[in-house]
């Protein structure tokens, strides 16, 4: 028995040395496992660039340019995720006339991995969403909308796990209260589940499944003057979430905002304005050389 313990310990220590050795060597070559997360929110059917006489954003944005940029990044980076935090619909005549079909086709072409639903994604009613969604070959993640009694039953999912190299990424979606924001006939019998409770459940599930990085796609909004639920509040009142990619408030953040969660760990919140004016780009380097009891996030 004692001998067995000794052997085991020796093995682990040796293993540790080997791993540490190789990790340090990797660091010198800057080859730690890396994940590139590209994200948008509130694109609002802005398919063409803004017009050249636009008061604030002349010639900016446009799906064609975003596609080209994403392709370029895919050539440079091995592990790329493309995500959207909702309000894909509504804002240009492309939506009024074609009901969101082109938006879905283009996001599919750009290789989006997942999106969540914003309040405006209900603007064509649930039947309108369903018609457009037929052209999307990525999932919509909606953990706190219970669609069981609606035509969207089984059309969305709560979460998604994607493996990128050695990195297991868990993603789930959180939407905002539709009552008072969206006419009742557009969301029908959708049941709204508490965002904090749901987020904690989802994050716990994803952690249990061994996800290295847990991302919440949120359409709650970045922050409010009142105590209304927002990404900041969600970050403070949950655990196991590393990153919240938000939307709804059209907030331009220069870099991710840090919040402390229930365990005192850092949660990052990011949002990139609206209209496809910016493409969010976050590079996560999973540096195994430094260890701590808790997950440590260092923003550079």
């Amino acid at each position: 028995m004692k001998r067995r313990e000794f052997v085991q310990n020796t093995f682990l220590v040796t293993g540790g040395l080997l791993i540490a050795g190789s990790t340090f060597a990797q660091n010198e070559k800057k080859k730690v496992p890396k994940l590139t997360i590209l994200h948008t929110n509130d694109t609002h059917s802005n398919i063409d660039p803004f017009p050249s006489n636009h008061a604030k954003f002349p010639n900016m944005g446009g799906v064609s340019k975003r596609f080209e940029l994403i392709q370029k990044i895919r050539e440079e980076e091995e592990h790329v995720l493309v995500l959207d935090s909702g309000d894909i619909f509504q804002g240009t005549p492309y939506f009024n006339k074609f009901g969101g079909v082109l938006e879905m086709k283009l996001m599919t072409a750009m290789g989006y991995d997942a999106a969540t639903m914003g309040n405006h994604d209900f603007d064509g009613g649930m039947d309108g969403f369903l018609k457009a969604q037929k052209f999307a070959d990525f999932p919509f993640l909606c953990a706190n909308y219970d669609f069981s009694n609606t035509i969207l039953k089984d059309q969305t999912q709560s979460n998604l796990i994607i493996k990128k190299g050695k990195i297991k990424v868990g993603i789930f979606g959180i939407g905002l209260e539709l009552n008072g924001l969206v006419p009742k006939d557009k969301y029908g019998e959708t049941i709204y589940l508490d965002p904090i409770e749901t987020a904690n459940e989802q994050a716990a599930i994803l952690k249990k499944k061994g996800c290295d990085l847990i991302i919440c796609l949120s359409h709650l909004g970045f922050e409010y003057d009142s105590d209304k639920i927002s990404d900041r509040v969600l970050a403070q009142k949950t655990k196991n979430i590393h990153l919240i990619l938000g939307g709804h408030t059209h907030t331009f953040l220069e870099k991710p905002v840090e919040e402390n969660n229930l365990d005192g760990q850092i949660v990052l919140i990011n949002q990139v304005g609206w209209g496809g004016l910016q493409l969010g780009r976050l590079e996560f380097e999973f540096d195994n050389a430094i260890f701590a009891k808790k997950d440590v996030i260092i923003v550079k």
Partner: protein
Amino acid sequence: MIFRLVSIIFIGAGLWACSSVNTLIVHSDPVKMDNEHVSNVHIESMIMPYRDSLSLEMNEIIANSQTDFSVKRPNSNLGNWVADALFVNQTKAVRLSSPIICLLNTGGIRSTINKGQVTIGDMFKLMPFDNEIVWVELPVSVIPEIEEYLKKSGGEPISNCTLKNGKLVFNNWNENASTFWVITSDYLMNGGDKMAFFSKKINVNNTGVLMRDALITEARVQTVLQEDTTIRISF
């Protein structure tokens, strides 16, 4: 010293084996989608048929603008223009006996109107929602609720009235009135943006007219968009 180093490495290896704990170094580099970026032929060919079909309708010029119109709280030239245009559109053929105002929501105005030619497409961007104009009759007793709402929200587009020092002042007040009319959208009347006072409505007149269509009509009539920068809301 050596023991310490070994135990650190040991813990490290153990945690690594569980693959549950990492140090994440995060670099953030949002990319501005400006003119530096080029377009893509494949995507352009996907968009083209949709764009062509839209542009026929959307590129029609309906007016000109000598200034940039944009919306903000509590007062803005665009908020004033939209509220006035809807008010004029709805009341020009009506002799007003009851007090009447137009009350909209800042959030419903989704774009700017830029200096230069104004097209149908601009109006779609400004007012993308297919909301209809409704007339709502309310008891005068809800006026304090409207004042409170405007104070709390920081201001919304209004026409034919002002909010002076937090008090609603009608342009056509009638001392004997026990009710008044509000021209607004079906979205707001049905509880949108939490304008709860609309639930106390006495009468509703559905016009069936899209707000956007009314704005297009008024832009055509004006030819050059009329700018009004008067302060309508003060607390």
